[in-house]
């Protein structure tokens, strides 16, 4: 199976090279979806060996992820791994995340940052709990870590996924897609590395509220 990693990135010139280089060890190809960065993210990622697709302007994590998925499909991906560009996820977890797909036990795998002992700040735990609740309210499916960017799409999910939400709401939309298409879901515990940088780049409370409202609105509009 051809495994391609998709990394949505926005102004990550300082970190993207390391993420791409480490990820390449575990997949066949790496696609970086550069979401209108104003720094050298695209050039740095290209030099590190990634295929780069660049949005002319910033559209949001969901749009960048979908662009990366489309690019990976064009490159013949059977399995797609998505992970964050800020070094929060450890690419060494990719093999364990791939296991349910390779063993044909799941169509879609969620990483679970809360499945093992991780140092996660309280505020992050709180935001994720709210995200999980909103996701459950709109999809009817409980996922322990619905808002994590580390995911694996099996062949069926690669074929069927079609995200329409542009921002962070896409995490909830993915759960909805899984429910709608009746994908078999697996959850795999992972390590997570929170640094000052990662925390500073994370969502604010205002953004979290905005995201929740957008999820509810979109679920109503569908």
């Amino acid at each position, binding site marked *: 199976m051809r495994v391609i990693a998709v990394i949505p990135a926005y102004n990550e010139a300082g970190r993207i090279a390391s993420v791409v280089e480490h990820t390449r060890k575990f997949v066949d190809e790496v696609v970086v*979806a550069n979401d*209108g960065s104003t720094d050298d993210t695209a050039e740095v990622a290209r030099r590190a060996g990634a*295929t*780069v*697709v*660049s*949005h*002319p*302007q910033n*559209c*949001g994590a969901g*749009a960048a992820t*979908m*662009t990366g998925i*489309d*690019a990976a*499909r*064009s*490159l013949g991906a059977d399995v797609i791994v998505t992970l964050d560009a800020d070094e929060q996820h450890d690419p060494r977890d990719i093999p364990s995340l791939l296991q349910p797909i390779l063993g044909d036990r799941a169509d879609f795998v969620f990483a679970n940052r809360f499945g093992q002992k991780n140092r996660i700040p309280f505020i992050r735990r709180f935001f994720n709990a709210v995200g999980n609740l909103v996701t459950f309210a709109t999809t009817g499916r409980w996922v322990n870590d619905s808002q994590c960017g580390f995911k694996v799409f099996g062949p069926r999910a690669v*074929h*069927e*996924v*079609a995200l*329409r939400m*542009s921002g962070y709401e896409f995490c909830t939309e993915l759960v909805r897609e899984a429910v709608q298409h009746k994908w078999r879901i697996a959850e795999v515990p992972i390590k997570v590395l929170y640094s000052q940088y990662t925390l500073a780049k994370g969502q604010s409370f205002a953004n979290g509220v905005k995201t929740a409202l957008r999820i509810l*609105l*979109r679920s109503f*509009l569908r």
Partner: protein
Amino acid sequence: MASMLPLTPYQIIAPLISLLAILYVWSLVMKQKKTIWEGFLWTFFWTAIAIIALFPPVLDYLAFVMGFKDRQNALLITFLGVISFIVFAQIVRLEELEQRQTKLTRSIALRDAGLDGKHQCGGECCKR
């Protein structure tokens, strides 16, 4: 209908505006710029405006049916409802525009990378 006499300027102007609006809406329907559904919807709306202007006691009946204390409250609540609908329609429109813009941006990104339209999805994901 004692309340109709004498007619106030509002009771003359409002139905006239309603009539013109209805004619305008149906002219747009004829030019296929609006759907028949929209034609009926706007006709219903402007007819209601005209009826309320000509027969104000209708509001008393509405207030009674909807459980409002008096006609002023009924009018206020009705217009709040109309404004809410307009705001909602605008939000829907904005969402549509944002999605179109994002779709366009994504298409440009894939085209520039030479990766547009090559994947074998059987059309399923591209339909949506």
